């Protein structure tokens, strides 16, 4: 049985098609999940993609967090299912309290779409096993409210427990300690402001490259699922 990776669509989600493609390119079977449907349809991992769920009105991710599908995602995450939230998905995970902190308006006030350099700091999460700790990668960001914020105690704890997954080399939005992505304590839930699904092929990835630095997020989880014998290679 091949790995089945679900991609959730909320009303206002934009990057679901991209995430589904990334899952497919990585070699897993992409499965569309609909926000009103609490059934996870037997998926082995879940991506909450980018976009503007519910228009990003009120707060990014605030309304999506109450969708029926999120009840199931939260339960599955607590049981260890790998969950990746990208951009708006990261915001949904924070609003759901699966991840600490919050994402607020960028320091520059503006929406920023830019290829950024990151270091992958934690190579032991479900989604980053394919990277080397400290590896530098290029992945696009595109957000208006991507400034990661948490109280000092939480930030210290994230650092101390190796849960800072990725850090900006040139902090584009004033994120606390240049944090671009974090994980939960178990390492199965990862939230990331940059968009790895936009860096998976030479034709459409960052220019001038490297163009495919995002792909390992998707191949890593596949490898993790195979290693844990949840699915066949």
């Amino acid at each position, binding site marked *: 049985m091949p790995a089945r990776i679900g991609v959730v669509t909320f009303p206002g989600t*934009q*990057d679901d098609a991209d995430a589904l493609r990334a899952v497919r390119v990585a070699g897993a079977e992409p499965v569309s999940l609909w926000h009103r449907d609490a059934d996870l349809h037997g998926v082995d991992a879940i991506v909450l993609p980018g976009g*503007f769920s*519910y228009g990003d009105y009120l707060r990014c991710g605030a309304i999506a967090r109450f969708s029926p599908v999120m009840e199931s995602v939260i339960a599955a995450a607590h049981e260890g299912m790998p969950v990746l939230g990208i951009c708006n998905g990261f915001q949904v995970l924070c609003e759901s309290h699966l991840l600490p902190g919050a994402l607020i308006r960028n320091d520059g006030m*503006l*929406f920023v779409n830019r290829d950024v350099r990151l270091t992958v700091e934690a190579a032991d999460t479900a989604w980053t096993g394919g990277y080397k700790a400290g590896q530098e990668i290029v992945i696009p960001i595109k957000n208006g409210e991507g400034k990661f914020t948490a109280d000092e105690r939480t930030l210290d704890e994230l650092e101390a427990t190796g849960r800072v997954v990725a850090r900006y080399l040139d902090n584009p939005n004033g994120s606390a300690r240049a944090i671009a992505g974090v994980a939960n304590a178990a390492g199965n839930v990862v939230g990331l402001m940059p968009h790895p699904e936009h860096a998976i092929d030479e034709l*459409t990835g960052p220019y001038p490259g490297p163009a495919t630095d995002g792909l390992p997020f998707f191949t890593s989880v596949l490898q993790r699922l195979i290693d844990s014998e949840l699915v066949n290679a």
Partner: protein
Amino acid sequence: MSEHTYQADTVERAEASPETEQPYEALGVKDDEYARIREILGRRPTSSELAMYSVMWSEHCSYKSSKVHLRQFGERAPEVDFLLVGPGENAGVVDVGEDLAVTFKIESHNHPSYVEPYQGAATGVGGIVRDILTMGARPIAVLDPLRFGPADAADTHRVLPGVVRGIGGYGNSLGLPNIGGEVVFDACYSGNPLVNALSVGVLKKSEIKLAKADGPGNHVVLFGARTGGDGIGGASVLASATFDADKPSKRPSVQVGDPFMEKVLIECCLEIYAEDLVTGIQDLGAAGLSCATTELAAAGTGGMDVKLDLAPLRDATLVPEEILMSESQERMMAVVTPENLPRFFEICEKWDVISTVIGTVTDTGRLRMTWHGETIVDVDPRTLAHQGPVYERPYHRPDWQDALQADAPDAARLARPAGGEQLRATVLRMVASPNLADKTWVLEQYDHRVRGNTVLAHGEDSGMIRLSEESGLGIALSTDGNGRYTKLDPYTGAQLALAEAYRNVAATGATPLAVTDCLNFGSPEDPEVMWQFAEACRGLTDACQILGTPVTGGNVSFYNQTGSEAIHPTPVVGVLGVIDDVARRTRSAFETEGEVLLLVGETLDEFGGSEWAHVVHEHLGGLPPKLDLERERQLGEILVAGSRDGMLSAAHDLSDGGLIQALAESCMRGGKGARVVLPGELDPFVELFSESAGRAVVAVPRSEEKRFTDMCVFRNVPVARIGVVDGDTLEVQGQFEIPLAELREAWTGTFPKLFG
């Protein structure tokens, strides 16, 4: 005031009170137009009918001043076999092969964007995307050609940031990549910015949708946002003038968009299309329900009964006249058979989209509307949709045109830089000037990646979108326009706009196919403006014939002026191209050291309307660059063939700022320098800064130089070797050398300094 106490002006009342005075002038209806309405109806119109005629016969909706000139786009169009839907529908549709079709159109939202830049621009994007959606297509990209007053003017600092945020805010929230556009500054746009937006969509050839209400008994469904009081200043005049008793509550002066609503509306429509549940569909744009009902009815079986009081409202105090004129965003109207209705509603419910049956298709030939049971509209819909007034506006060549053209920017008139030092300083000044400077500050606010099919976007000659992951089939789009050229010579100026967009598309390796245009002009009541308009239309038509690219649709925006001062006539032209495999796209970046740089095309001493004359001398006079459209076509073929045969490593079209600007951009984009040896006998300044049309610079591997050059010679297009890609400076031998870092600082510094 509740709706029930509102005493509607019924047909019965209209018949009984022929002498009632009606405030038609306040609605922009002329005496003779009002007389014609009475003649058509055989009585005075009800206030609701008057509201409808006033909007449907407005310049914006009826094209009454432009129609006689626009006709030639269709009548003298080049013979092609790929045009599936031509001008006249919501957007043109072009066959791009593999069972796929593409629909694209450009529109303006100039005036609203001046009043409220964010919402004006945002709703401009929303409107054009709905036109694309209406054709049955999934919208897949947007472009935004923009014009503002001087970059350092206070008002530009109010307008530009808001416009850019609005286009980004709305387009990004729809999940549509922004793949191109323009940002141009000129004092003529002070107080009248141009905010044009182009959208493109893709559909199966067999699934084109049309705006017609066919089949008596079919339901007329209004779905999407509720109707509010947006954009109904005029209607309120009418309502309150006729019935001053209970004045309706205050009406908003600006339309506010809800991109989230539009996003779900798009997905909802696409699901409805996929199951083939509509027999006709129309978006609600300008003139809202008036336009949608009349156009659907006029194009279909011919009749429609509507219960207007069933329209879901955002503001319960709206009266029928206002509901008919409301321009509330994010609404659509569909014609649905009774069998399909339950499934249609189900899909709307899935997407939380409100949908309401408000009427029925009939074969009466009449559009009838009732308000709580009383008939308030009873008209032949064709008289509204198709039989509006047509004006043969007088036009004549302005008296000042000769003097303007005589004021040529020749060397005797405008001091030219001479010698390496002066040329070097001019290059740095030019790359930093607002029209030529790096637009990253703007472009970073737009998502160009969403949907994952963007092969080329900002910084390239045209945007390119992959349509098929299997075959690599794709499309390219570019928009261009030059108000200064068009002011100097409207006929040639319009052609130059087309030629530049055409060249841009070809430069990326795509074959130019078809055209959409947004004609931004001053008042049509000014015979000199009308002459500019007539000349531009004639020029565009002629050029389209030679290039073989039909106009498929577009938009006219008149009355772009501050007081009596009109903007430069500004036709903005969008060209759509097709490419069989996006993997062979040509970028503009110089990437590989040692590759040969070739200049294709001929350079003349042409500075009329040039960026150099504008920036350095604030001068506008003379004639625009000459245009040889046959040569332009040859150049296009060379660029496409060069891409197809794998000869080209880079290509960049030459336009504003001339050769040196193109070289600078390609160097900075690829992070590689260039060593340039000027070929001709011309003054180096002319070689570097002239804006002669029909030119491009290309980089080819040494092994391909001969083959490429032969191809040019064979087609009788001049080609000259001008240097190599090399090092990290831009060097013009014997003249000057500029380190890329210095060039980049000048080029990238301007926008952050102005707006950051």
